[in-house]
């Protein structure tokens, strides 16, 4: 009988070689942003100004905040198509509530404050509803949120009677600093964006919950067998996203002081695109908040750049963003 083979020690792993490449991969979106900004500076001297930067960041804030929540949902292997409609519904409800409270004698500050709180509550509840349908009801997230995408916007249209809901003037004055005020020359929405992204990053990378989200997206079965409370974690990702939509909406409402059936139109696609451009894989398992933030900024810089320069017709803005998304997906196709 031949002797028992003893040399079982494996050669050192190839992981060491792969690491720099992977690190470079993570830097892809940042690299893209740097290239775009350099290009912008060369093409138009209005681009590299502080005002323009703040302008771009403020516009990014809504989508960016939603994208942070979307990042959790996508990493866990889910999707939420309803965020744009949800934002419209929240905006409508908040305006209705604030007007009502103002009319029954609440002080403008109290009315606005309660309305803002309500935005978070409605967002969280919508997310909770999605989570329940997806986990307990065992319906695909795509289907659930496709359904609510229609439902939310239809109700807003119904509440607004097909037109627009407008905030009363006194309330609007009280509320407007939430969008227009700035601290240290940085607009308030940008501060909120930074805070949401920071909190999101810490939750994803430094808490057990964040690890569970990644574990579920990477392989839900393994997570379930490893005693992860899969349903609860999943529901929480949708609640988190709902709250993010609530935050984005309460920043957005004072900008125009009204909500109409076109409020938040296509936000879901922009938020999903930001997450994907930021390097998160649509099938879940791994992703990054930094990437998502950079992705959101990248997409709005493209829009800003096309508006400032005459490279192409402004009608083609969406086309350019579409090409960017496809190119990024192409570059990432070998990641697994």
């Amino acid at each position, binding site marked *: 009988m031949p002797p028992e083979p003893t040399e*079982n020690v494996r050669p050192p*792993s190839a*992981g060491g070689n792969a690491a720099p490449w992977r690190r470079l991969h993570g830097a892809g979106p940042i690299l893209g942003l740097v290239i775009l900004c350099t290009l912008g500076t060369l093409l138009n001297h209005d681009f590299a100004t502080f005002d323009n930067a703040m302008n771009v960041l403020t516009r990014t804030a809504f989508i960016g905040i939603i994208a942070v929540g979307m990042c959790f949902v996508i990493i866990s292997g889910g999707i939420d198509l309803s965020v744009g409609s949800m934002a419209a519904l929240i905006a409508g409800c908040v305006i209705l509530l604030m007007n009502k409270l103002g009319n029954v004698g609440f002080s403008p500050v109290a009315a606005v404050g309660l309305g803002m709180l309500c935005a978070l509550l409605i967002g969280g509840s919508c997310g909770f509803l999605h989570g329940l349908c997806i986990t307990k009801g065992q319906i695909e997230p795509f289907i659930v949120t496709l359904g609510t995408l229609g439902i939310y916007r239809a109700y807003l249209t119904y509440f607004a009677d097909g037109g627009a809901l407008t905030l009363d003037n006194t309330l609007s004055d009280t509320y407007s600093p939430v969008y227009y005020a700035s601290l240290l020359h940085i607009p308030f929405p940008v501060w909120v964006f930074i805070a949401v992204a920071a909190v999101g990053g810490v939750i994803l990378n430094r808490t*057990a919950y964040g*690890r569970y989200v*990644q*574990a579920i997206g990477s392989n839900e*079965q393994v997570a379930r067998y490893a*005693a992860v409370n899969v349903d609860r974690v999943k529901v929480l990702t949708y609640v988190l996203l709902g709250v993010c939509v609530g935050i984005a909406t309460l920043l957005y409402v004072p900008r125009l002081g009204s909500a109409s059936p076109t409020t938040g139109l296509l936000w879901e696609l922009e938020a999903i695109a930001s997450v994907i451009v930021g390097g998160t894989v649509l099938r879940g398992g791994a992703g990054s908040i930094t990437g998502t933030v950079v992705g959101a900024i990248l997409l709005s810089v493209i829009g800003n750049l096309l508006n400032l320069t005459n490279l192409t017709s402004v009608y083609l803005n969406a086309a350019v963003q579409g090409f960017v998304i496809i190119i990024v997906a192409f570059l990432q196709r070998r990641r697994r």
Partner: protein
Amino acid sequence: MSIAVEFSNITKAFGPVRVLREVNLALVRGRVYGLLGENGAGKSTLMKILAGYEVPSSGELRIDGHTTSFQGPRQAEAAGIVMIHQEFNLAEDLTIAQNIFLGHEVRRHGLLDDQAMRAKTAELLKQVGLAAPPDIKIRHLIVAEKQLVEIAKALARQARLLVMDEPTATLTPGETERLFKLIGQLNAQGVTIIYISHRLDEVERITHEIVVMRDGRFVAREETRHISRRHMANLMVGRELSDLFPPKQLVALGAKHPVLRVEKLSVRGWVTEASFEVRPGEILGFAGLVGAGRTELFEGLLGLREHQAERVELDGHPMHWQSPRGAADEGLTYLSEDRKGKGLHMDFGLRENLTLMALKRYASPWLRPEAEASALRTAVQSFGIRTGSLHIRASALSGGNQQKLALAKVLHPDPRVLILDEPTRGVDVGAKRDIYFLIQKLAGEGRGIVVISSELIELIGLCHRVAVMRAGRLQTILDASHLTEEELIAHATGTN
């Protein structure tokens, strides 16, 4: 019309893991070969190379004397080589006829000629002895019938060499008989047959010659009539079987309560009123055929499947958990038989895998990666996980080391009771021995251990008692000290 095959210096590596090492082997035409080896010995990989599913990393494959390199199973099929896998390659929602002609559809004037395909299928089904209409969907067939469809498909490709990977694993004795008759017929028509099986009695009965592989190497070949089953088993394992297992320790009888007690647990469609108990320090084996309900029993116990139980006790306290989380919190964890699908996150690092079940311990509330890393270093040491780096993905480990990591993972919450489902599947002999000694050590610490295994030698060699399940019922619990494989098989198949 049959084929002669020659493997010359065949080597195959998946990343850093070498699964075949310089295999030299020549098979003459028209014989029935039994290919033996433990899980992970490289049998399936070698056969996949032959059937065009894998390309060797180096070495040559010669068919009838000509050097060949297949670029896919279609090319191998064109050469008359067909492999029937353990998991069937059938599209469940297509009919038998559609499956048999999948990728080889008969056309007339550019359109599918369904009539001709149905007629041909009916003819083939008659030949393999399957009384089913060609139009029935695969979904509606039982496993044995699917097996016959696979063979009919092979016949439709005019197979001259047929590889069968564990074809009887899910068949009843009657169905197995019919399969053997068919193998005899095919061989009489001149088809070369390579038969992979763990069941040495079957190999002894139907093959002319056996070929043994171990740890990716060719070990021995012998005329079947010149070799005993015991000798076959020793060749597969590579040592006297008695050296493989640690000496059994006596179970402390003084304990007041069994560490785990289950009364009348049922899982609908799988398990009917199973009752058993595990004493502290005891290793209780679970034997049974595929589909006997062993895995389902424990998935029920964990709350992964709907179930009813009259009573579940841990150390004498009644338990009511509803999920693996609850079970782990109370002190019971489970190692799945399906390492890739349910056991480890293959694209996660080792650290993340190790701590997942006890992550709360590292969150206060922020995770402490340094503490996790030091836990990983300890685990790598104490479980003997061989890895060049601590910063690789789980998928980069070899099968045996993945299994050790999976064991470390389910042990991380420090459970009182550990359920191990096929703990040595796909693991080489050295790692197997390590795992047996580890299990023994865990039992020695007073934990209760349940081992579900399809390897009877393992159950007899390792466990104190062996529970036998058949068709969802716990038939009997046997003392393992004087148990034989024949006795276990008799209970498992109901032929005692």
